[in-house]
């Protein structure tokens, strides 16, 4: 993206001035290098989102942004139902409530490295991953409804998780307002045998060492100590969320084209929040959020069993669970007035600052943990939400490194076997059924995650707390 097209606000904030059909400006948080490397499509998609009915304040774009579907990946937009605001299936995305969670093991990395091969093999055999894999649970219809209503709470009640986890999950592990009756039979069928599966693509389970502590007091409160090991899971609502997204996108496009909503791009499929379709989508989407929360809880259970096999005394508490593809009802201060808004975050993480009432007591003085996945073989970060993010970005921050190169290009450049061998030589074990999948996910196909989190920190969205280094990565 050419910076000349933008108005520079400061070192890490840029503005797309309203023009054409735009109702609000676009605001991109990134340094000049990240802006220059950013796809022009991000500009185009930001302009389109800023043109949607009922959008409030600005369309915000995170430093890891790249070309998405209708919304840029890394896009944040809030809509006011009182002013004709919309809800967008494209704005939430295909993988509803895709997110990241991190479990603290309190184990020394030297102890884990002594058993690295065996732990990697055990995780590979216990975590269903990749195309064709099945979960260890098949849900009957009544159980499906209960799961879609109950989220991680349901998983805990079924014995696939720990009660203490719940306060460390957004929405306390269960999103209100889920309507399983608005989820199609096809979506439920697609999920029936997929609970507790990792999926494929950029999803992973990673065993990581805390390499560097950047903010000691917050790291201590988060349970992060240098040299100790954590387990991070990146996954979403699996087939159920994908099916809901596909079905509602079509329905919203067809409805929009026969109504007054002008879609600059069909991928921006949306409907008025107060419309019948809008309400049905919200009910189904919230059920998909619960599915994702339950899924990550079950995956954690499988990972905990592996760790307890090797380390029977390990406690393994959950640090936090964040979702980065969502639409949530939140109250924000806009033009001096507190307004109830539908905040879409597509590839962006909620980042509540210190003191926020939604945070559990132990975390409240420090801000919400913001978990930033890197790419296989490169570092990840734990950040903490900043109070200023409330006014700067509706309390949002980045979600990962963000791709810098297409899968197509990555496949032409790298060989999966070579990547696995090179990473093994650096002490990182990769377990994946597909050498080609590894090539498509090559670490260098992603942006520099450090540059991304530095930009988020300088922009006052979130502070760096700890840097993590991968030891084992399970890919689908």
């Amino acid at each position, binding site marked *: 993206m050419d910076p000349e097209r933008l108005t520079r606000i400061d070192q890490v904030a840029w503005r797309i001035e309203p023009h054409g059909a735009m109702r609000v400006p676009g605001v991109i948080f990134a340094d000049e290098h990240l802006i220059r490397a950013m796809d022009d499509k991000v500009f185009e998609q930001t302009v389109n989102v800023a043109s949607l009915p009922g959008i409030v304040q600005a369309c915000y774009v995170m430093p890891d942004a790249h070309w998405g579907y*209708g919304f840029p990946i890394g896009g944040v937009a809030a809509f006011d139902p009182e002013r004709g605001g919309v809800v967008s299936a494209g704005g939430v995305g295909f993988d509803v409530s895709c997110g990241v969670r991190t479990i603290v093991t309190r184990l020394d990395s030297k102890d884990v490295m002594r058993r690295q091969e065996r732990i990697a093999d055990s995780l590979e055999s216990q975590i269903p991953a990749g*195309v064709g894999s099945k979960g260890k649970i098949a849900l009957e219809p009544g159980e499906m409804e209960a799961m879609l209503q109950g989220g991680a709470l349901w998983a805990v009640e079924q014995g696939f998780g720990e009660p203490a986890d719940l306060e460390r999950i957004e929405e306390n592990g269960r999103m209100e307002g889920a309507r399983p009756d608005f989820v199609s039979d096809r979506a439920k069928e*697609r999920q029936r045998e997929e609970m507790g599966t990792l999926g494929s693509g950029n999803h992973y389970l990673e065993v990581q060492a805390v390499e560097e502590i950047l903010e000691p007091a917050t790291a201590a409160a988060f349970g992060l100590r240098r040299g100790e090991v954590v387990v991070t899971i990146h996954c979403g609502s699996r087939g159920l969320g994908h099916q809901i997204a596909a079905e509602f996108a079509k329905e919203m496009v067809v409805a929009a084209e026969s109504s007054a909503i002008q879609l600059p791009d069909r991928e921006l499929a949306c409907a008025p929040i107060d419309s019948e379709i809008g309400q049905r989508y919200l009910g189904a989407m919230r059920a998909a959020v619960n599915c994702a929360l339950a899924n990550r809880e079950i995956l954690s259970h499988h990972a905990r069993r592996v760790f307890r096999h090797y380390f029977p005394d390990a406690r393994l508490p959950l640090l936090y669970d964040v979702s980065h593809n969502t639409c949530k009802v939140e109250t924000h201060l806009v033009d001096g007035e507190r307004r109830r808004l539908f905040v879409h975050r597509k590839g962006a993480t909620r980042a509540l600052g210190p003191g926020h009432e939604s945070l559990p007591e132990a975390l409240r003085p420090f801000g919400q943990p913001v978990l930033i996945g890197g790419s296989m073989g490169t570092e990840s970060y734990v950040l903490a939400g900043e109070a200023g993010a409330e006014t700067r970005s509706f309390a949002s921050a980045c979600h990962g490194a963000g791709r810098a190169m297409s*899968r*197509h290009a990555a496949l032409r450049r790298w060989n999966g076997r070579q990547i696995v061998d090179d990473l093994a030589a650096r002490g990182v074990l990769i377990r994946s059924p597909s050498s*080609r*999948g590894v090539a498509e996910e090559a670490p260098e196909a992603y942006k520099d995650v450090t540059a991304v989190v530095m930009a988020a920190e300088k922009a006052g969205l979130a502070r760096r707390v700890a840097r993590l280094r991968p030891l084992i990565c399970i890919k689908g």
Partner: protein
Amino acid sequence: MTPAPRPPSAAARWEHFPHGADIGLRGFGATPEEAFEQAAYALTAAVTSTDVAPKIAVEISCEAPDAELLLVEWLNGIIYEMAVRRMLFGAFSVRIVGDRLEGTLSGEAVDAARHAPASEPKGATYTALKVARDDAGVWSAACVVDV
């Protein structure tokens, strides 16, 4: 019984094209049906580089108000069958009448060791979505698939 696929025309081929995070598919053919079939081959090729044997046939049908939405429905129909049956498909046959498509997919159960699936398609999208006929009369059917 797997239906015998019609012989491909000289125009029949498929390609992948780059997208930031995912993968673009484009099928070409002498008719819209053939272009849709070729796009389906491109979908399978996004998952595996290995041949898929057409052992089991699955019938699907879908409808949409225009050809582009119909392409998305067709690819999403295949993705659905791949997911619930845990199969990959290696042969496709499409019939389009008005706004309705009937298709036959032929394939086999996923064999993780042999197929080594590289990615799991989540859904076909409206990004770079285009069904068109060029000046030489060749049809193309394209969109990006989220993986």
